[in-house]
């Protein structure tokens, strides 16, 4: 019985880590792609965009920061409730 419980817990944490890995991978891709696109476009248009480049920095920063915190909250929520609601059965 004890082994079964341990096996279930192990299975749950493995699947939680899979969810976490997926989100971290997508967030990393998002940061890389947004950074690359912003850099290339602002670099080529710097003569014009240099006057208001901070607008792009502010909103890109907001997207990355809020989405990252949101994803951390999703992970925390899944971790808190995964046994209670039996997410991975």
């Amino acid at each position: 019985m004890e082994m079964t419980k341990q096996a279930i817990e192990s299975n749950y944490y493995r699947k939680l880590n899979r969810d976490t890995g997926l989100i971290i991978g997508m967030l990393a891709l998002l940061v890389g792609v947004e950074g690359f696109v912003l850099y290339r476009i602002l670099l080529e248009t710097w003569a014009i965009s240099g006057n208001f480049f901070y607008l792009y920095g502010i909103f890109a920063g907001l997207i990355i920061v809020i989405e990252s915190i949101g994803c951390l909250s999703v992970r925390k929520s899944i971790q808190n409730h995964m046994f209670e609601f039996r997410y991975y059965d």
Partner: protein
Amino acid sequence: MSEHQSASLVKTLRPFHVWALGVGIVLVGEYMGWNFTAAKGGILGSLLAMLVAGTMYVMISLCASELGSATKLAGGPYDWARLFIGPGAAAIVGLAVYMEYIALEAADAIVVAVIAQSIFPELQVFPVTLLVIALLTFINYRGVVAALTLNFVLTMIAFIAIVAFFFATASGTVDIHPEYLFQGALPNGMIGLFAALQFGPWFYLGIEGAAMCAEECKHPSRAVPLGQQAGMITLLIGAAMTLYLCSVLIPADLLGVSVYPLFEAAQNSKISIFIAALGLGTFLTCIASANGCVCDSSRSWFALSRDKYVSSWFSAVHPRYNTPYRAVIFTMPVAIGFAFSGFLDQVITFSIISGLLCYVLIPFSLIRFRRLFPETTSKVRPFVGPLQPYIAYFAIAISIIILSTLFWGYKYNLIFAFVFYGIAYFYFSHRHSSSTAENNWAEIGWPLPKGSENTGIEKEVIGVGND
């Protein structure tokens, strides 16, 4: 109660279905439509519109994740407004969501028919449009799992096509024209930056609909936040990739008027595999979007019907397929009517205004939800969104700013929408203020809301799914 009405929606959906519903509806906006930002504000206007709208949608998707995982109802934004604001706001949101998705379905079906005709010139647009609408209605009638699994496959192919094209371009496999970026940077000056905002939502329009399958999810408190946030990140990645690809492969003046910008960018790359992949992606993403729209619009109509905002005849659930089949079938004549009304462009603009109205009311529902139910328990709030209510207020502010930019060029559409929804608000507020139905929060295991004796929330809560 008949057998049909006593059946309930089947609870089988998983996070990837939520992702498929949200991204499937929206990805078409990255294949076409977003590029009108370039016509207004050039490449820099497009970039700013993408980032500002992206910020708004990130915040709205977090609000939707919290509300969807808490209420677990098929009506999504409509049910949130009904529970936490009132019947007038609920009617506005319910109708707005319905109009938003049904108009998009009609437009998608026509584009599919036009693409099919360009490949096979002997085909006629009208019968193919009818066929597409009928086929997708039938798939949704048969079952939500099959419909959303199909959406997952179609959407994944379309997304992978963008990713592959982007990495090939970024790695130097495709010859690009960086000079296009400077040439089309800001053709209309600083005012163009502001004007471009009105088309920014095209990158993400409809992602809030992902939460509308919460009642059919196996574990909504996991599936909705996880699927919706994964979907939001997918769209942010897709938007940035799309903007870059089109900006360096299509001159800005042509980009602003292109019908299929990603496909045109692939054609300009002169690499046949990408031309085929992006052409296929354009076709598939239109089907996926129309399919998701049938799903979401029918759920919105079903929820309106269940609460007697429209005829309760539509609230029947199929005893075998567990789908709201009458609401699903009813999408067909309405979509066909929109498609061949001759005013589709006006209808689409109306749907964008409807969407933006929802983006004011969804965060407001979240603010009200937090005020009415401040306690955080597994039952009431299994997913606690971060930085609330500050990001809800910020999302409302951005929505109103984008809505105000529609005054340039779409003044009469805006006035018509406000009159239409104003009438709906007062009519349904009056009609449901005399309702004798009482709150039944206990039925869903929730405590009474804070200050419930004078909140004025008088609607009954029915048919709520549990984890």
